[in-house]
């Protein structure tokens, strides 16, 4: 019972059906935590999202990809931004600080596209090995991108922050997919929502989803 109340208070409740993001809350938090600029970014985001509601998927992908890559200006390691070796930031944190790691870009894009009504099964957060400086480079790096599958068996489109333009996977020879995931199966049902567990008991992925909810992003 207490757990239920707690989780309602924290807003850690992600139902299967999309609920609208609470922009008021998001705005207030952005202003409180990061100041005027962050607030304006959120207002821009709100305007953008509202204008894209009825747009085709392709347009949604492009505009969101652009917006996120633009607003998270600094691409850096988590250790420099957050003081932790691997920190998954919520979109609010990333937009607020205007800095992020590869997964922060991908998470933000994933969340905003979901907000725009793109179904879960079309989206994958994908761990990739990225060859820095082209497909023949010997230097590779752990990286994360967002893949978009127009149909289950189609070739995905890659939303990346290294190469800003959206390209099909075949045109990204510098990336080798390792593993992909989305939020499917994470929050099904109600009895297994995090409830009384503190966020520290959740996986990074679940943890960031929960914190997002607290920020007002559904």
């Amino acid at each position, binding site marked *: 019972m207490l757990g239920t109340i707690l989780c309602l208070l924290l807003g850690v409740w992600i139902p299967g059906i999309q609920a609208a993001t609470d922009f008021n809350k998001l705005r207030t938090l952005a202003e409180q935590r990061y100041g005027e600029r962050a607030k304006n970014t959120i207002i821009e985001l709100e305007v953008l999202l509202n204008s894209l509601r009825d747009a085709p998927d392709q347009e949604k992908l492009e505009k969101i990809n652009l917006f996120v890559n633009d607003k998270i200006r600094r691409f850096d390691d988590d250790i420099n931004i957050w003081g932790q070796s691997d920190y998954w930031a919520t979109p609010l944190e990333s937009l607020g600080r205007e800095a992020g790691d590869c997964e922060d870009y991908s998470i933000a894009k994933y969340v905003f596209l979901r907000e725009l009504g793109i179904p879960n*099964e079309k989206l*994958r957060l*994908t761990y990739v090995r990225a060859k820095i400086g082209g497909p023949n480079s010997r230097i590779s790096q752990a990286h994360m991108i967002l*893949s978009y*599958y127009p149909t*289950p*068996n*189609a*070739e*995905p489109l890659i939303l990346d922050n290294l190469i800003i333009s959206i390209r099909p*996977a*075949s045109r990204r020879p510098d990336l080798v*997919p*390792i*593993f*992909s*995931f*989305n939020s*499917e*199966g*994470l929050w*099904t*049902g109600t*009895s*297994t929502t995090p*409830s*009384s*567990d503190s966020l520290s*008991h959740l*996986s990074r992925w679940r943890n960031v989803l929960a914190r997002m909810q607290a920020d007002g992003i559904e």
Partner: protein
Amino acid sequence: MSLIKQLWIAVSLLMLLVFAACVIASIEASKHTLEQQLQMKNIDNATSLALSLSQIDKEDPVNVALLLSAQFDNGHYQRIRLVDPEGKLISEHYNADILPNTPAWFNRAFSIEVHPGVAQVQNGWSQYGTLSLESDATFAYQALWNGARKMLLWSVAIALLAGALGSWLLRIITRPLSEMANMAEAIGDQRFITMTEPRVTEFKSLAQAMNRLSNRIRKMLNEQSQLLEQLRFEANYEPISGLMNRKYFTSRVSAYLDNEDNFEEGVLVVSHIAELADINAKLGGSGTDQILKRIGHALTDLCKPENGMFAGRLSGADFAVFSSSPHNLELLCQQVKDTILSAAALNESFPDFSPRTIASHIGRSDQLDSLKDLMAVIRQRNDMAQLQLEMDDLAQQAASPLNTTRTESEWRARLDNAIMSKRLRLASFPVISPSNTLIHNEGPMRLQLEPNGPWLPAAEFIGWAIKLDLITEMDDLLVQIAIEDLKNGKAAIGLNISSRAVSNPAYLDHLHALLQANPEVADKLWLEVPEDGVFRHMEAFRNFCLTLKPLGCRIGVEHVGAQVARLGELHDLGLSYIKIDASVIRNIDSNTGNQAFLKGLCLIVHSLGMMAIAEGVQSNEEMAALPDLGIDGMTGPAIQPPAV
């Protein structure tokens, strides 16, 4: 239902609720933790298996099948399922045999709901499928079941301990309550006892109130009996000397003469002060009154030590002393004379003053009229020696020949024999109510000294029985006979218990055991103790009542009359009845003084919850007058058993 029982049930119910809530809450909490753990395991294992599948070469489906089998066979899974992006099944492993060995109802009540862990499998950039994985939850049910059982066991153990502790505490807390219940019951029985005040505040005020009630009633009773005593005095005593008046003295003596069970022979001493007129002339009225008062005091003091001895002023100049036990005539005669002489203290003014005093044996065969004759004789005759002789002759003739002709050893042999062969029985004198129904039959002892001999009343052998220490055996035997009679269907029996028997613990034990063994007749047994015995052995009598009353028999006091002022002391014994002495009843139809007294006495007796029974009813006139005065029962020569 008793308060303790109700409290017990209430506490038990509460504890049951609390424990049930505890057990259920704790099972729920455990269940939740287990669900969390299983959920995490599902997600993690699904993710890691999907990761492995994403890395291998999936051109050959055997690779995929092998990996899934290896994971499924070596792990604890209910189901592992792989479907392609279009929802078509690629592979499924399912363990149908998993059945928890916990009771089905338990599994239903606390079902563990865990969702499968879901992860995506990639084949390069393209989607290969969705993996869903469910763990085996049997161990969780087992753990839950074991935990619940352990908890239940502990709960029961703690509940038992708490129950024991609780009932102990309850008993301590409600102890004053049961005392108060006893007291309330006692008051209901018109036993006005008091109790020590408990420390619990609520109980304390209640106990105080009840004690106040008891005390007030006791005080009222005492006041009433004092008043009664005054009435009795005015009706029966002569105001100047404080001695019994003629009417009362005669009634008392005749009550003895009629009482064949306790009286064999007594002594009557009469003294005549011939000089009274001269004294009055010389010393004046008040001087004479002083002398009479002194004489009265002295005679009262003389009689006081002996039970059944009393003095009266028969007329202006005639004094009398009666003793119900045989005495040396001359000695008693001289004692009375000396007492009067020294009390009068007339050596100076009347050196020749000498009361004329004679003594006589007086037995059951004597008529009371002889008293009148006696006084006439004393007044007329100066020849005291001659008179004495005549009277002694008279007494000799009147005395029973048995008394004088047997020796001690003969008595012992006969009494022993009579007891051995149980030649004892109860006589039967009816006690009836004014509406002519039988209350009980008074059963005085009768004994046959020889087989087929006459049945003798107690007075003829009781002296010897006491002397030879056989009386206890006879008392015991008598109770046995009474109980035997009652068991044979006889009507209720009133049994005389001597004060000697009352203060004999062995007898009391015997009686208690007999009554306990025959509870069905206990309520038909009326036990009565004479008044002087009751007040002389108050503690013993109290013990007697408290021991026997709970067994259901009725206890009463007989021959009540001389000590009504102390009647209040009997308030807390729960007596059932009193029998009022024949001396009060004698000529009650014409004696207005005694009528007032008897009326008051009946009032007190009724307010103590007892019956008032009149003894020695001799005439139909008495019988007619008694019910109006409040009498509930009558016995005596004039009373006939009601026709059946």
